[in-house]
């Protein structure tokens, strides 16, 4: 025998679980998971992202996969797409960086500039 409160609880719990199936208003994370990405370690990065989001009850942020973006040397690549469609591309990701992106970018809204593709390219140039 359920009460109205229990109904409410089931609703909230299930809503979170089903959130991946609906477009969320906020961020969306895309992980490059082609052969190159997987070889470079995209799978643990993906798991770290999911774990971190779950820990913070942010199941509304879908983590999806995509194919090869074309810059395989910078894999694993993670893209964070905001509600307005603007993209931030993080490169050479690992588990720790992934956790940082969730904490700083997704939760607090601050782009981790040093992990972005722009920073990586700059660094590569200064080394030459």
């Amino acid at each position, binding site marked *: *025998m*359920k*009460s*109205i409160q229990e*109904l409410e609880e*089931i*609703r909230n*719990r*299930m*809503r*979170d*679980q*089903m959130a*991946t*199936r609906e*477009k969320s208003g906020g961020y*969306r994370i895309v*992980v*490059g*998971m*082609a*052969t190159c*990405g*997987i070889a470079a370690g995209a799978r643990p990065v*993906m798991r770290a992202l*999911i774990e971190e*989001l*779950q820990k913070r009850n942010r*199941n509304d942020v*879908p*983590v*999806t*996969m*995509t*194919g090869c973006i074309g810059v395989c040397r910078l894999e694993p690549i993670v893209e964070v797409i905001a509600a307005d469609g603007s993209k931030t591309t993080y490169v050479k990701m690992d588990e720790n960086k992934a956790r940082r992106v969730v904490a700083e970018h997704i939760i607090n809204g601050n782009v981790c500039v040093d992990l972005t593709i722009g920073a990586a390219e700059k660094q590569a140039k200064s080394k030459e």
Partner: protein
Amino acid sequence: MHFYRAHVLCCAGTGCTSSKSLDIISNFEKYIKENQLENEVKVIKTGCFGLCAEGPIVVVYPEGTMYVRVSPADVKEIVEEHLVKGRAVQRLLAGHDKTAEVSQSLDNIEFFTRQKRIALRNCGVINPECIDEYIARDGYSALAKVLTQMTPQQVIDEVTASNLRGRGGAGFPTGRKWQFAANSKGDIKYVCCNADEGDPGAFMDRSILEGDPHSVIEAMTIAGYAIGANHGLIYIRAEYPIAVQRLKIAIQQANEYGLLGENILGTGFSFDLQIRLGAGAFVCGEETALMTSIEGKRGEPRVRPPFPAVKGLFGKPTVLNNVETYANIPVIILKGAEWFNTIGTERSKGTKVFAVGGNIVNTGLVEIAMGTTLREIVYDIGGGIPNGKKFKAAQTGGPSGGCIPAEHLDTPIEYDTLTKLGSMMGSGGLIVLDEDNCMVDIAKFFLEFTVDESCGKCPPCRIGTKRMLELLEKITSGDGEDGDIEKLEELAKSISKSALCGLGQTAPNPVLSTLRYFRHEYEAHVYDKKCPAGVCKAMLHYHIIADKCIGCGLCARKCPTSAISGDKKQPHVIDQSKCIKCGVCMESCKFAAIYRG
């Protein structure tokens, strides 16, 4: 609680199940395990997505990628490519053959963007065997709201204000029906659901019950509260085993959760629900016949009044509504009558689900706002007529309805306009006919159906429709005589007036409406002994054009009955008494010297 990064939704509706969707599901489970994704990806059985021509359908969320015509053998590739590597399997994407630019998302396919889904809101989205998923989509919130915040009269007022009309055919205002039943005095009252769905080709109700059974259960409980009934019955045809199974599971879950049964949600209101299987007779969809059938008697209609709202099942006040009508109720309660009134037209509010079939590219289920034009359904949502053929007419309302010809393609679809055109909304069958369909033959098809299904209780229907069918058979076999068309019309009109129930009263409609728009086709059959569409075989003749025939003799050698004769290098002739109209000669002639007419 576990979080899955992806959900694989696989249609387990009747259409797709018959094309192996259960094997697809088990293959998904197998390969997902093989790739160690079982903690990341969840496979879910859902109801019909509505694009049956393209079934079996698999949708992968969160991207919403829709795969069509999936076979069990494709599953390995989808798992390895899409779920492991994140690359959509292009060749299986919806719309793959049609456009170079593939649409990867369900939401961008025109078939879906043009629709407005209220009754089908959960079909293809939730797992119909999981009550929690229904609850997550606001399921049972309407029931909770009704039981705790509204009086029965307020519920009826809300439904009345929504202007919802019955989706089972007649389009009677649902709120008014509930009011009548509420006003009837009685210690016992019943709420019934009509899931008989007898129209040939219609499967809207089946899809709702297979894809979202809880919405009907919730709505019936609300109706029970509104009219003061504690018992509900769903009358469903036994030919719908999946729907029956899903309903059983859903009823059991609702009982376990205390959303059905004694003291629902602790509010003191009790309502129980049972299933009654019908043997699938069309006439048992008629409300009085349905109730006599539930009572265990022969399913025959009786004279109304008294109406069921006063004297229905077991002589008690009863509300009977159609499955789709019920599916609208929880949304109306939650979003309000005012919201519902913003959808549709002046006199028809909300949406209607159609089972679109016949000569159209996207056969399947569509839910459109009332007032959408036939042109939009056929061309924008339906993808047009295959093989570049010309649209001739759309048949709506099944054996009780009629056809809408090309000149009325821009008519908005709603109850009153369809009736004015001589057709009717019906329960939602929509069959698209093209230039190759003979309208007399179509009328005959529907009349054969009604003659078969007539219960035989009253003479106008039992004898009259038989006489009409005989006339149609006479006309289509080339024996029509002057006066036959007029006889058909006269019979049609008197049957409409004198038959006891809706079956007989509406049985002549397919004839009347084809006569109204395509009288010339009837006349061509009767007076010229010709079937303009080339369907009625008796009237087909193959002829050799003497000017074009070079006398090669190829046709004569191919003809299975040696009906063709002629000297070498001389024009040949066909002996009509021997010809069996197989058409082989026409296909074989290299000089286009043979024609059909």
